[in-house]
């Protein structure tokens, strides 16, 4: 899992939409494409990026391949906020130092 990958993957609005759809349950490429103004190949391409970022995983079920949110993706969100709070607290401490000095 790499945070840059997660942020880059979710930096695209269509990928965020796909990721959101999967939060309500596993879907096939066809089902995802039906709800989006993009082609099936485009959806597949986006899914590949999301998969590489560790945000979604897939599994073959009969003749269909279903995609779902990978719980490991939460690690990416957590990592993101880890950096977020690290920076925020550093700024807080800087301000305290400035005012003291």
């Amino acid at each position, binding site marked *: 899992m790499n945070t840059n990958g997660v942020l880059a993957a979710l930096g695209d609005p269509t990928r965020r939409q796909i990721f959101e759809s999967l939060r309500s349950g596993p879907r096939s490429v066809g089902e995802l494409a039906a709800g989006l103004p993009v082609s099936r190949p485009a959806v597949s391409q986006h899914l590949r990026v999301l998969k590489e970022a560790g945000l979604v995983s897939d599994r073959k079920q009969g003749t269909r391949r279903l995609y779902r949110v990978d719980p490991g993706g939460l690690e990416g969100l957590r990592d993101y*906020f880890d950096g977020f*709070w690290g920076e925020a607290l550093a700024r807080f401490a800087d301000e305290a130092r400035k005012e003291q000095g």
Partner: protein
Amino acid sequence: MSTTATEAIRKTVLVDFPPEEAFDLFTARIASWWPVRTHSYGGEQVTDVVFEAHAGGRVYEVTPDGEQDWGTVRAFDPPNGFLLEWLIGEASSTEVEVRFTPEGPGSRVELEHRGFTASGPRAGYAGGWDVVLAPFVESASKKG
């Protein structure tokens, strides 16, 4: 299937202010130090950050277009600490708790952000990650 709870984020910082002042700087005067350019929805458009000093209060940013909530104050106990319900989308929330304790002439500020769970979406959940991540991702990519 088991519920996956990702470990909480914990951060500690030491400041020379006693807890009373550190608490005040973190809450009432949050706008004086919060890095809005990178840590907000509106980025450079943000003109103010408001932390309402009571349980049930809102924490939000102000831009010329209006206000955007970051979370809700669940507990407000100066100078010991506060608890926020930190929004990740409309119906998906996490908790941020900040504690201030005396340490020498200053204080220790401990932050915990918890509740990253994969229990699945709740009814009405829509665009949650979009809401929280879009502005941050944009500013993060601009920075790089």
